[in-house]
């Protein structure tokens, strides 16, 4: 006897389920309700429709005719308003009442709209159906759209609109795009590719409010105060199973409508399929499991045995030119191993995660041809121990291939600047080589590349090697560490010329051999990035040595020393009292006067650091940075204030210098001194920068040392005014910051580049001196602040205490 089946929702899952039913010749009288005024189309192909690569007609899977041929009573545009399970009747918004023997819920999901202020403004849409797509397609070229959500859907929407000439900004709350499918390196490459398409991508960005005008969206406000103007705002932050109708009629509902392995709900005559269901605690958003469910639901309806089993799924992004593949699990868990392959020249990144000799996850970017090969082995649980060595190269390369350390330089375009001093690009060097300059001296003579400060020497040699092949013998250079073959100088230059602004960019573009560096290279790279891109790059505490991370000096017993700043060595009775109080309150084991004219409290426990900082802050004192590769102190004598020999206000200049320079990060520590007369009581002539005041002005000398090496400073210049002494000092510190190798003190760096070169830059070239001082000031606008004040705040202070303490529990 023909049974009556009512289906609620004409989406991809129910469409596939009906196909299976009719193919098997099942005898059902089907009524199909759909709130959308159309039949089933391939929703995952909306993105190609948006970008113009396909038309809507091409993605329709079941049109009116298809249903008619199969005798389906279609009620498109009709919403089901009520299900009466006792009477086994469904009521529609058109007033119809349809009786059923079996009912199939395929109500799908609703886009999640963040309930932030302004979400109900005109012009705020989700990305879910054809209406949304058409809305985006109608945005004229040149209009502005903000997309909230850097997941699969959000990025496809962004790319589709960008292809139509719309100015798109993607706002993503997490640290990298598609964080559920991609790891950070792949996320970085994706971001770069999207930015190449003209899309602005903002990660770690928190949306605060949607701003409107006359009831229409005008801009998105982020919680850092940034306003992003837009004519349309698309929220693509996720979906929620549409369970309302199911819950209303009393079915068991959690996040989705509960189903068992046979896709039967808590009512044996009601089944559910697709994005509206919850199976074993999981809900579904990708198409592969939905099709599996459709198969099961059809079999259950036909009285055959079948069970739905979730399986590993893989993801591909449907954005032209962004080739990425992700499958399985590549985060969390012990006993996992990574095999990583990077090819900067081709923009390729591949990572396979292995556990117990089996592939459990794979991420690839740029070259996804082998994705299904890895995915197949992952699904089958293939033991890969025999092909481990060559696994990452894919099925075609089981013979093995080697990574070329020269790939980074080979990949540089001809207009990439190699020599910053003389503005020489790779192309000019290659031309010179082709014209007969076959060694470094020849290149220097013909192009001047590497003939000035010399920091690009390694790169020039690599260009020679890449261009000449075996003809050129590379002199051995010392690489930063085992993670790379590049030297510090090479890395610095490439960070500038390729505009690498994140650690991920460095690891990828320069072909790092490790996932995220090591204790040798990470602090160096962190420094180079923040020195070259003070505004764009954010300092990473986890790439800092303990003292700089905890803003105190660790001692051999694990306690810390705390040194508050005393500007120019000047203090007050109030400050001294506060220091004495703090020393007692926090049980300082030793109180010592330092060589830098301030007071060191030793033996402070880590968990007490936020407390002592807070107390010292209250007395007006800030960190003395006695722990940093940065400005330490400016030592002074009392100058004209008190001394009968003083020629200038050396104390005043010292304080001004310290206030200008404090908080700055430098390649190694920086110490200054200002003496009020040539008697040099402040011992200025063994500092990184020493100033001797004379009647007619200020003698500035640099590159002294009084540590492992003892060295007198070298005379840089004499300037007539205090303002010039300040500017010259800042310019010198900045040129040192921009060029020196990490952990080279100023005297070591000056010995490498030569004092004459430094003089050319900061003494003779006044415009350059000013530009350097301005760049220093820009960086200081960010770093000239007290780290203690930030870390003493309650939410930061927590991290100085143990995360859990089981010694407080009674011993059992």
């Amino acid at each position: 006897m023909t049974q009556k089946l009512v289906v609620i929702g004409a989406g991809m899952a129910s469409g596939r389920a009906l196909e299976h039913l009719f193919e098997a010749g099942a005898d059902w009288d089907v009524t199909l309700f759909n709130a959308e005024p159309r039949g089933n189309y391939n929703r995952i192909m909306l993105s190609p429709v948006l970008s113009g690569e396909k038309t809507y007609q091409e993605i329709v899977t079941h049109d009116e005719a298809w249903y008619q041929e199969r005798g389906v009573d279609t009620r498109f545009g009709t919403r089901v308003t009520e299900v009466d399970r006792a009477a086994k009747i469904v009521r529609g918004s058109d007033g119809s009442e349809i009786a059923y023997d079996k009912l199939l819920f395929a109500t799908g999901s609703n886009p999640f709209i963040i309930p932030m202020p302004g979400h109900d403004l005109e012009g705020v849409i989700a990305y879910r159906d054809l209406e949304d797509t058409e809305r985006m397609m109608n945005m004229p070229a040149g209009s502005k759209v903000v997309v909230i959500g850097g997941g699969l859907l959000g990025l496809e929407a962004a790319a589709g609109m960008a292809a139509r000439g719309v100015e798109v900004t993607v706002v993503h709350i997490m640290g990298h795009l598609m964080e559920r499918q991609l790891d950070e390196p792949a996320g970085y490459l994706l971001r770069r590719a999207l930015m190449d398409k003209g899309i602005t991508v903002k990660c770690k960005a928190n949306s605060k409010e949607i701003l409107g005008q006359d009831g229409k969206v005008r801009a998105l406000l982020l919680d850092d105060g940034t306003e992003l103007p837009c004519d349309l705002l698309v929220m693509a932050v996720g979906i929620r199973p549409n369970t309302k109708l199911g819950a209303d009629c009393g079915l068991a509902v959690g996040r989705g409508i509960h189903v068992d392995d046979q896709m039967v709900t808590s009512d044996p005559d009601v089944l559910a399929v697709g994005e509206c269901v919850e199976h074993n605690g999981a809900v579904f958003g990708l198409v592969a499991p939905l099709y599996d469910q459709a198969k099961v639901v059809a079999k259950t309806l036909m009285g055959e045995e079948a069970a739905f089993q979730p399986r590993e799924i893989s993801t591909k992004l449907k954005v032209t030119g962004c080739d990425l593949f992700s499958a399985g699990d590549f985060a969390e868990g012990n006993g996992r191993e990574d095999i990583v392959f990077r090819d900067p020249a081709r923009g390729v990144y591949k990572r396979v995660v292995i556990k117990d000799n089996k592939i459990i996850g794979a991420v690839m970017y740029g070259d996804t041809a082998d994705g299904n090969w890895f995915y197949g082995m992952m699904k089958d649980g293939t033991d890969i121990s025999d092909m481990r060595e060559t696994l990452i190269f894919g099925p075609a390369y089981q013979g093995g291939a080697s990574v070329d350390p020269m790939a980074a330089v080979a990949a540089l375009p001809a207009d990439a600047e190699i020599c910053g001093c003389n503005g020489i690009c790779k192309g000019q060097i290659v031309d010179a080589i082709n014209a007969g300059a076959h060694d470094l001296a020849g290149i220097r003579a013909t192009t001047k590349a590497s003939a000035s400060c010399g920091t690009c020497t390694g790169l020039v040699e690599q260009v020679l090697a890449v261009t000449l092949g075996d003809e050129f013998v590379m002199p051995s250079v010392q690489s930063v560490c085992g993670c790379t073959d590049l030297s510090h100088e090479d890395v610095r230059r490439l960070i500038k010329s390729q505009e690498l602004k994140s650690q991920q960019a460095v690891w990828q573009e320069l072909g790092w051999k490790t996932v995220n560096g090591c204790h040798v290279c990470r602090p160096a790279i962190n420094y180079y990035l923040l020195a070259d891109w003070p505004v764009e790059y954010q300092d990473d505490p986890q790439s800092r040595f303990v003292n700089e991370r905890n803003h105190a000096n660790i001692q051999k017993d694990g306690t810390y020393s705390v040194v508050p700043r005393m500007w120019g060595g000047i203090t007050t009775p109030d400050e001294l009292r506060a220091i004495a109080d703090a020393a007692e309150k926090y049980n300082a084991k030793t109180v010592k006067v330092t060589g830098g004219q301030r007071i060191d409290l030793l033996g402070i426990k880590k968990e007490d650091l936020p407390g002592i900082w807070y107390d010292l802050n209250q007395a007006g004192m800030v960190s003395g940075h006695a722990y940093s590769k940065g400005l330490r102190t400016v030592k002074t004598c009392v100058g004209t204030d008190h001394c009968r020999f003083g020629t200038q206000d050396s104390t005043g200049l010292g304080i001004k210098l310290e206030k200008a320079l404090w908080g700055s990060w430098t390649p190694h520590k920086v110490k200054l001194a200002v003496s009020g007369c040539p008697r040099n009581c402040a011992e200025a002539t063994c500092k990184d920068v020493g100033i001797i005041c004379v009647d007619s002005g200020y003698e500035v000398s640099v590159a002294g040392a009084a540590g492992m090496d003892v060295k007198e400073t070298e005379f840089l210049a004499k300037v007539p005014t205090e303002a010039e002494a300040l500017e010259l000092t800042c310019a010198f510190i900045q040129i040192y910051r921009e060029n020196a190798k990490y952990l080279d003190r100023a005297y070591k760096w000056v010995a490498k580049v030569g004092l004459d070169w430094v003089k050319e830059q900061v003494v003779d070239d006044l415009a350059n001196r000013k530009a350097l001082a301005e760049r220093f000031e820009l960086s200081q606008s960010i770093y000239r602040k007290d780290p203690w004040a930030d870390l003493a705040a309650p939410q930061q202070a927590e991290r100085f205490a143990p995360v859990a303490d089981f010694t407080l529990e009674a011993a059992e």
Partner: protein
Amino acid sequence: MSWTDIAALEDIPVRGARIVKTHAGCIAVFRTDDDEVFATSDRCPHKGGPLSEGIVHGKSVTCPLHNWVFSLETGEAQGADEGQIATYPARVENGRVLMDLSEINKVAA
């Protein structure tokens, strides 16, 4: 195994560590780039340096005092140095860090 809830994963900085105090001494709980967690003794066998303050790279940590590098998975010193730190079972579940403290409690008892 009996798993004890230690903290939220977010409480531990990425590529960083936090301390758990126990009767058997301080345990360092590390979080890698990939949000894996590892628990080891906090004490470097060389000169007692606090490993939780070291730089975390890949699945290794470098002691802040004298740059000994340890595998977080095996506890073995890497490179030329010879030494071993204790490792303890730890995992992440629903955003919480769980540790098996049974070995530690045995030591303390």
